[in-house]
């Protein structure tokens, strides 16, 4: 036998072994009771991500720092399989997520209103933002078994927040440039520097609800334990409908990796 033959045989042997295993594994890795069973998953994961305009507007010139704050998700999913491959699940997750960012902006249109006073115009300089959100998400997903041990799930989610923070400050960039042109680019120039930055807090202008799409993968690591990764992609603006201090819509995009216990 040539080496080539040996190699082909080995691959065939390996493949058939895998298929054999896969064939009887649909049962082994299936839901706890039969192929159409239902079950419960308890999930815990580490969440990171950010809240961002998409695409980035041209006013954002560079991102100097982007550091997601370590977030967390815990929750329960109930699922029901309708046939060998298809099922549905619904969850109830609690989360904390947040990020810190520093960006250089140019002619960034902004408007602040406090106590009936408005300051608006175009800011050029550095903008520091801190965001934190504590809340609850309900994903309603279709699940698809790609293979005995791999599940794909996707569908919409709905979130509500218990506590939210979107605050930061603006000041001069590394070149010492930091100013607001009042009302429009021909208005008074107000210089702002890091020794006396202007702070802002838009926490109360964040919308109470968010909805988007979730896509997730589960891998059945052992009889009761899944390893999972999911991405929640916000499709609704984080700002209240009439809020215009930030000239663009922003979306939360957060990923979670973690472990799930299967009952």
């Amino acid at each position, binding site marked *: 036998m040539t080496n080539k033959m040996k190699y082909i045989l080995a691959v065939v042997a390996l493949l058939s072994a895998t298929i054999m295993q896969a064939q009887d594994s649909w049962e082994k890795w299936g839901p706890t009771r039969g192929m159409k069973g239902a079950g419960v998953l308890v999930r815990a994961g580490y969440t990171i991500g950010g809240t961002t305009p998409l695409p980035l507007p041209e006013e954002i010139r560079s991102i100097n720092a982007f550091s997601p704050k370590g977030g967390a998700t815990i929750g329960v999913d109930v699922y029901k399989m309708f046939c060998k491959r298809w099922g549905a699940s619904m969850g109830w997750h609690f989360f904390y997520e947040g990020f810190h960012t520093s960006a250089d902006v*140019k002619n960034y249109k902004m408007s602040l209103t406090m106590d009936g006073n408005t300051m608006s115009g175009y800011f050029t300089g550095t903008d520091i933002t801190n965001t934190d959100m504590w809340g609850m998400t309900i994903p309603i997903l279709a699940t698809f078994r790609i293979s005995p041990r791999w599940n794909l799930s996707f569908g919409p989610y709905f979130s509500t927040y218990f506590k939210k923070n979107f605050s930061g400050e603006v000041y001069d960039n590394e070149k010492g440039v930091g100013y607001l042109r009042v009302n429009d680019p021909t208005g008074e120039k107000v210089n702002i520097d890091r020794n006396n930055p202007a702070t802002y807090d838009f926490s109360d202008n964040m919308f109470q609800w968010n909805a988007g799409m979730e896509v997730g993968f589960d891998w059945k690591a052992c009889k009761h334990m899944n390893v999972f990764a999911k991405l929640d992609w916000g499709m609704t603006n984080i700002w209240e409908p009439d809020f215009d201090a930030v000239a663009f819509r922003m979306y939360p995009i957060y990923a979670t990796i973690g472990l799930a216990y299967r009952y």
Partner: protein
Amino acid sequence: MVLGVFSLSSCIKEEPMNAECDIESVSVHVDNPISIFHHEYDTLKVVGSASDRIVFLIRSQENVSQLPLTLNLTSGATAFIKDANGNFSEFKNGSLVDFSQEREQVFRVLSEDKNWNRTYSIVFEHEIPAEGDFTLGFEDYTLDATGKYYEWQVLDAKVANVFTDGKWKNGNPGYKLCKSSAKPMEYPSVPVVDGGPDGSSCVKLETKDTGSFGSMVNMRLASGSMFNGIFDVSNALKDALKATRFGSPFTHKPEKMTVWLKYEPGAVFQDRMGKPMEGIIDEPDAYVVFYRNQDESGNEVMIDGNDMFTNPHIVGLGRLPHNLNEDGSDKLCDTPIHGLSSTWKLVDIPVVYQKEVDPEILANKGYSLAISFASSWQGGYFQGAIGSKLFLDNVSLYCEKDEQ
């Protein structure tokens, strides 16, 4: 997925073109600046972001019919000059411009992105020498161009040159930034019709709360103020003391200032953080400073909120009495000695000279005169009592008579 978030910074779009269209400074090149100007530094004018009329004060109208002019614009912007027929043509730096007969030359600046433009005028005014003695009564006031707050003009051409742009300056433009909702009569410096000791209009300076925007930048109050010089609103948030620049060139040696004043201190003195300070009574301020306006290297000197009493170029000073510490710093206490009350009083503020005044330098505008009033004497540090009110009227300056 996580990578997707991190790679956002690779989605930075191309830089947008500049939207601003300022003349940042104007300069003229002449071989012998002193033949036209009083100081060499007068050949360059830095233009504030809010001003659109640029005035060069000159000794004589000779030799200004062909001046090579240089405009320093926002990067990418283009300047156009208006000709006699009202048409604009592109202006190239260094081109000769006719400023004879106080002709006001009009320029239009177009931003790099072509969406914005500003119109400026540049004029070379033959300076009318200021008279020594004057009295100013605060009768001429109007709303500013935006209709938000009052401004006081000095219309008498013989005194107007002591006031940059022919106007009294105060913190009202800064207050506008913090309190966009304020009505004109709610600003720190306001006119009082028929309120003066002689029955004519006077001025009320009142220390005001600056609201949420003020506390956002740690400037919780605004003292009412009135002075001659420059209030650089662009730097009011960055460095308020430095943004308040006092004085204008003056060719007479002041001996004393008299002014009608009355004062009502506000109830609670607060520190910069807004915390009440027990046992301190707010005090007003009124002073006149005479100083050399050029240093040894020929650079312009202008005193500001940091050094209006301590700048080494000061030659003479007169101030409302205060309790001061031995090192000259201000002592905050509950026993003011300014002697003012809520009834009008004519106050005499003599100028005390620490240095000689050189008559030659004096005649060539080498000294500047600053006069200034405030409703809270520590207002520059954003300390004071909200509601402190200083009323003032009929400021008179008396100068030495035999100097020329």
